C-alpha cells in the first residue's frame, strides 16, 4: 500500500491534571489516504477531538503529546515539531486546514470576516491587500455565501451559524490544503443547515481533490460522507474499515451497539423500542482494565476481556477490530439479553375527548425598550397556534431552533404567560379549564397535573440540592408528603427511573448527563401528572444514553398512562416516540398529522425539507436528499416574511399567492392538516418505507427483533 497522506501511529496524548493523568488518547493508529474522507466516530469523551487537535499540536495545557508519531506526507514528523516553529506554521493552514464545532466562536468578533479571511490568505501566500480581497470574495462565493462582496465586510456576529461555518471553511480552504480536519463541524447547526454544509464539504472535496478527517458522534453523518470509518472508545480505535464494512458488517460490539441505538427515520410510523448500550462511558480517571469496553459489553468473556487488552484483528482488507470474541472457540449461545418486543402501539382511541386543546395561542416578546423607551419591535415567538392532545398519546412538536416550539411548551405548562389564545385542559372531572387565565392557588394545583422535563441536564438541577430535595420539592410545595413519607416516595420514584434509592443524599455533580436526565424525569413524574411536556429531553445526551432515556420514557408512559407533549428538533427521535406530529415554522403550525402519515407523505414543503435533511445511517442511501435542499438562513423572527412565512426558502413556491397571502391551516384527509396554498396539488416525498432494519450477523442475532 502506498504511503497515506497522514499516518498516525501509537499516538498518546495525556492531560496532566491535579487529579492525575488522564489518558485522553492512548495509542491511536489512524491513516488518512489522499483524497479520501475518513470519519472518526465515538461518543463524547472518547478522545476524538483530542486526536484531531494533536495532529496540529493544538492541544491546550495541561494536555501533551507523550508518544507516537504523526507522519505527514510521508516526510514530516508533526508530533515532534516545535509548536511555535516556522515549519509547523507552514503546515497549519497551508497544508492542513481545520474547522471547528462552534463556527461563531471560532471567529474573532473584533474583525470582519473578510479581514480574517484575507489575513489567512496573506499568511501563506504572497498577495497584496487588493489581491487578497478579490481572492477572499471569490472564496466566499465558492463556499456558497450569497452577496459575497457585501458579506466580506460583515462581522461574524452579524451572520448565522451556518454562514459562519462557511466562512470557516473558506478560511480553511484558502491555501488549497491537502487535508481538511473537520471537528464536529455541523453539531451546533440545525439539521437543514447541516445538510447544506455537508453537501458543500463533499462538493469541495471533489473539486479540490482534498482528503477530509471528519470527527463526529453522529452515525447518520458518517454514512453520508465517509469513505473510511474509525470508531473510537476511551482513547483507542476499536474498529476501522470502509464505510460499507462498518455499516454492513460491524465487528466490534461497540460499533454494533452504536449502530443499533440510533433512532432512524423509517417512515413506518410505528413506535419502536431502541436498543440501548447499558451504562455510560466510564470516566477517563477509571479506564477499565483489559478491553475498556467490557463493562458495557453484552458479550464480554469472563476471565479474558477484563484482563487482557484485545489485539487488533484483521477481518478483510483494511477492516480491523480489536475484540476477543473471535478467539473464543465456540460462539457463546445467544446472550441473556431479552428479546425485545416491538411495541406497535395501537393509536389512541380516537373517540376520547382531548386532554388538551390549544386555540390561537400566541406569545409575543418585546425587543429593546427601557425606562423611557418604547420597545422597538416584537418577536412573535408563537403566533396563533392550535394543537390538540388526546389522552395517552404522545404528540411530537418539531421544527428548527427559533421556531417557537419551546415557547409553546412553556406556555402550556404556564411557565410563560401567553399573550393571547386559550389553553383548554380537561380535568379529571371531565370539564375544560382555560389554563391561560388561571392564577394563584388554582394554577398551583394544575402544576401538579402538568409537569415539565427540561432539556439541559446540567442547568435544570440545582447543584446545591440533594436528589431528595430536588425530586421531593414538588411534594413539599404541594404539601403532598414530608419527612419519612417523602423519603419513601422519592426512593420509589428513583427506582422507577432506574436510579438506586441510596443516591438520594447525593448532589447532582455526582451524576452523568444521562443519570441527571433520569432525575429530571423523576421530578416531573413524582406528583403523578396527567400531561408531561418534555422539552428536548434527549438532545444533550450521547447516542447510547439517548436510547436509554427514550425507552424509559416509553415504559413510564405505558406504566403510568401518561400523555406527552414531546418537543424535539430531531425528526428521527420524534418518529420513534410520537403518535402524532406537529411541525412548526416561525411561530406557526405548518403541518399536523399522525406520525405514519406525516413521514410517509408530508403535505407541507417544509416538512419535506426537514425530513430529507436528516442524514440516514445507511451509506447505500446517501445523497438522496440533494434534491430537497432549502436555504439555510432562518428569517429574522422579529420580521417574518409576508405571505407564507416559508416562501423565502420553499422549493415549491409558485405565483404571487405564496408571497402575499398567509396560508390557513386546512384539513387534508382524515386527522391531518397543513398550511400550504398548494398542499393539495403537491406530491411531496416522504421517507422511503423501504426502511432497512439493521443487519445483524449470526452471533449477535437475538439482540434485535
Amino acid at each position, binding site marked *: 500500500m502506498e504511503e497515506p497522506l497522514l499516518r498516525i501511529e501509537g499516538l498518546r496524548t495525556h492531560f496532566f491534571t491535579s487529579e492525575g493523568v488522564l489518558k485522553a488518547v492512548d495509542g491511536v493508529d489512524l491513516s488518512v489516504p489522499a483524497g479520501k474522507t475518513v470519519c472518526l466516530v465515538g461518543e463524547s469523551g472518547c478522545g476524538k477531538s483530542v486526536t484531531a487537535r494533536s495532529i496540529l499540536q493544538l492541544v491546550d495545557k495541561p494536555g501533551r503529546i507523550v508518544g507516537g508519531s504523526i507522519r505527514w506526507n510521508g516526510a514530516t514528523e508533526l508530533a515532534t515539531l516545535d509548536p511555535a516553529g516556522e515549519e509547523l506554521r507552514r503546515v497549519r493552514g497551508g497544508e492542513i486546514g481545520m474547522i471547528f464545532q462552534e463556527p461563531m466562536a471560532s471567529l474573532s468578533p473584533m474583525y470582519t470576516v473578510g479581514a480574517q479571511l484575507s489575513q489567512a490568505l496573506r499568511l501563506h501566500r504572497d498577495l497584496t491587500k487588493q489581491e487578497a480581497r478579490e481572492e477572499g470574495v471569490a472564496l466566499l462565493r465558492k463556499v456558497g455565501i450569497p452577496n459575497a462582496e457585501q458579506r466580506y465586510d460583515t462581522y461574524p456576529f452579524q451572520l448565522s451559524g451556518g454562514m459562519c461555518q462557511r466562512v470557516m471553511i473558506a478560511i480553511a480552504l484558502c491555501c488549497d490544503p491537502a487535508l481538511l480536519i473537520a471537528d464536529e463541524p455541523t453539531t451546533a447547526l440545525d439539521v437543514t443547515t447541516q445538510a447544506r454544509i455537508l453537501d458543500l464539504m463533499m462538493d469541495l472535496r471533489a473539486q479540490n481533490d482534498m482528503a477530509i478527517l471528519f470527527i463526529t458522534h453522529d452515525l447518520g453523518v458518517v454514512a453520508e460522507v465517509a469513505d473510511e470509518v474509525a470508531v473510537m472508545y476511551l482513547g483507542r480505535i476499536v474498529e476501522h474499515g470502509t464505510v460499507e464494512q462498518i455499516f454492513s458488517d460491524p465487528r466490534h460490539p461497540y460499533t454494533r451497539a452504536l449502530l443499533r441505538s440510533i433512532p432512524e427515520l423509517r417512515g413506518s410510523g410505528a413506535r419502536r423500542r431502541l436498543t440501548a448500550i447499558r451504562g455510560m462511558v466510564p470516566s477517563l480517571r477509571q479506564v477499565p482494565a483489559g478491553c475498556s469496553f467490557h463493562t458495557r459489553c453484552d458479550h464480554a468473556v469472563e476471565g479474558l476481556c477484563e484482563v487482557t487488552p484485545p489485539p487488533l484483528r484483521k477481518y478483510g482488507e483494511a477492516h480491523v477490530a480489536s475484540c476477543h470474541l473471535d478467539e473464543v472457540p465456540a460462539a457463546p449461545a445467544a446472550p441473556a439479553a431479552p428479546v425485545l418486543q416491538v411495541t406497535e402501539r395501537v393509536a389512541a382511541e380516537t373517540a376520547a375527548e382531548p386532554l388538551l386543546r390549544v386555540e390561537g395561542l400566541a406569545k409575543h416578546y418585546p425587543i429593546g425598550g427601557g425606562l423611557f423607551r418604547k420597545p422597538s419591535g416584537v418577536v412573535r415567538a408563537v403566533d396563533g397556534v392550535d394543537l390538540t392532545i388526546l389522552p395517552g398519546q404522545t404528540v411530537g412538536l418539531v421544527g428548527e431552533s427559533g421556531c417557537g416550539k419551546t415557547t409553546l411548551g412553556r406556555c402550556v405548562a404556564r411557565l410563560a404567560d401567553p399573550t393571547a389564545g386559550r389553553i383548554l385542559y380537561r380535568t379529571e372531572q371531565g370539564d375544560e379549564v382555560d389554563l391561560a387565565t388561571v392564577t394563584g392557588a388554582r394554577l398551583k394545583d394544575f402544576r401538579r397535573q402538568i409537569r415539565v422535563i427540561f432539556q*439541559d441536564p446540567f442547568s*435544570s438541577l440545582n447543584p446545591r440540592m440533594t436528589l431528595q430535595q430536588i425530586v421531593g420539592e414538588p411534594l413539599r410545595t404541594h404539601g403532598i408528603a414530608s419527612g419519612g413519607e417523602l423519603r419513601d416516595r422519592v426512593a420509589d420514584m428513583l427506582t422507577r427511573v432506574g436510579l438506586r434509592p441510596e443516591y438520594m443524599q447525593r448532589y447532582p455533580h455526582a451524576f452523568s448527563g444521562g443519570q441527571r436526565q433520569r432525575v429530571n424525569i423523576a421530578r416531573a413524574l413524582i406528583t403523578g401528572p396527567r400531561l408531561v411536556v418534555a422539552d428536548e429531553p434527549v438532545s444533550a445526551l450521547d447516542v447510547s444514553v439517548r436510547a436509554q432515556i427514550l425507552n424509559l420514557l416509553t415504559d413510564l408512559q405505558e406504566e403510568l398512562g401518561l400523555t406527552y407533549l414531546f418537543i424535539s428538533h430531531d425528526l428521527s427521535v420524534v418518529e420513534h416516540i410520537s403518535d402524532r406530529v406537529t411541525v412548526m415554522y416561525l411561530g406557526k403550525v405548518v403541518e399536523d398529522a399522525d406520525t405514519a402519515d406525516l413521514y410517509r407523505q408530508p403535505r407541507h414543503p417544509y416538512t419535506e425539507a426537514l425530513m430529507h435533511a436528516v442524514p440516514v445511517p445507511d451509506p447505500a442511501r446517501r445523497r438522496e436528499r440533494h434534491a430537497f435542499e432549502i436555504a439555510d438562513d432562518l428569517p429574522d423572527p422579529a420580521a417574518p416574511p409576508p405571505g407564507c412565512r416559508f416562501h423565502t426558502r420553499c422549493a415549491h413556491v409558485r405565483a404571487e399567492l405564496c408571497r402575499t397571502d398567509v396560508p390557513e391551516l386546512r384539513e387534508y384527509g382524515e386527522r391531518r392538516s397543513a398550511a400550504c396554498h398548494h398542499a393539495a396539488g403537491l406530491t411531496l416525498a416522504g421517507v422511503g418505507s423501504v426502511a432497512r432494519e439493521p443487519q445483524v450477523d449470526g452471533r449477535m442475532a437475538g439482540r434485535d427483533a
Partner: protein
Amino acid sequence: MKDDTLAVASQWKLVWWGFKRHRVALVCGFVTVAIYLVAVFAPFLAPGSGQKTNADYTYAPPQALHFDWDTGLYVNPYTFKQDPETLALSFEADESKKAPVGFFVKGEPYDLLGFIPWDRHLFGPENPDGPPMYLLGTDSVGRDLLSRIIRGTTVSMSIGLVGVLLSLVLGVVLGGVSGYVGGRTDTLIQRVIEIIMSIPTIPLWMALFAAVPASWSQLERYFALTVVISLVGWTGMAREVRGKFFAVRGEEYVMAATADGAGRLRIMFRHMLPSFTSHIIANLSLSIPTVILAETALSFIGLGLQTPMISWGVLLQEAQNIRAVSTAPWMLIPGVAVVVTVLAMNFFGDGLRDAADPYKH
C-alpha cells in the same frame, strides 16, 4: 470511597476543598482570623491602655527585646542625653540595667469584652512602677505606640465589619429587588446606582462626613462614619447581587422550581439565594479592606475619627507632616498594620472568590 464522599458533599464542603488548595489564601485566612482575635482581646493583649501620657518620654525610640537565662525577657531602660548645643533630648538604651518583661503581669485595669474587669496583661514590664517598656517607641506625648496599635485594631477592624454589613443589607435588598423584579424597577435602581457611582467615592465621603457636627461624641462619629461609608459603598454590592440574580434567573432549575409550584419567596430564598451566598461572602471579605483603607484615609486627614478614640488612621494623623516622620519614623508603623491587614484580607478574599463557585466546570 473517595467518590462517595464527593457525591454527598454539599456546596460548602466543595467550597472549602477548593479554598484549601490556595495555600496563600489559606494562610492569609488564618492571619485575618488572628487579627480579629487581636481586635476582640486587644485590652488584654496590649501592655497598656495607650492613653497614658508620659512627658519624660516624648518620641522615645523603639526598644529591643532581649533574652538571657538569668532574667528571661528584658529590655534596657532608657537613659537621656541632652545635646549641649541644641538642648534636644535624645534617648539611648542603658545596657547596664535590665528591666525584666513578664507574662500575665498586672497593669492598667480594663474591661475585657467590655464587661469583665481585669488588670492582667499578656505581657509587660514585671514592675509596673519601674522603667517603662516601649517596644515600638512613643508618640509626641509619650504614649506607648504598641499599645495604641493593638488597641486601634478594635476600632479599625470593627468599622470595616460594621460598614460592610450595613452596605450588605442595602446592597442585597436593593440589588435583589432590582434583579428579581426586573423591568422598570430595575432600570430605576440601576440609574440611581450609576449616579452614585459617578461621584468620586472619597470626596463624597469627605463631603458627607464634613457635615457631621463637631459636637458629636466619639461614638456618634464612629457610627456616622460607618453610615457614610456604607451609604456610598452599597452600590457595588447591589450590582453584584443583581448580576447574580440575573444569571441564576436564566438557569433552568429556577424555572423548574416554578413548575414545581414553589412560591416567589421560596424560589428566591430556597432556590436562588443559596447559589450566590458564597459569592456574597467572598465579596464581603473583599470590601472590608476597602472600608479599612477609607477609615484610615479619612481619619488621617482629620475628617474621620479623632483622639481619644484610637484607630490606625488616628494614629497615622501624627505622621502627617514630614518633620514628625523624620524625627520619629516609627510613627509610620501603624501603616504597616494597615498594609498587612489589607494585604491578608485581599488574598483571603480572592481565594474565597475563586473557590466560591465549585460548579464552574
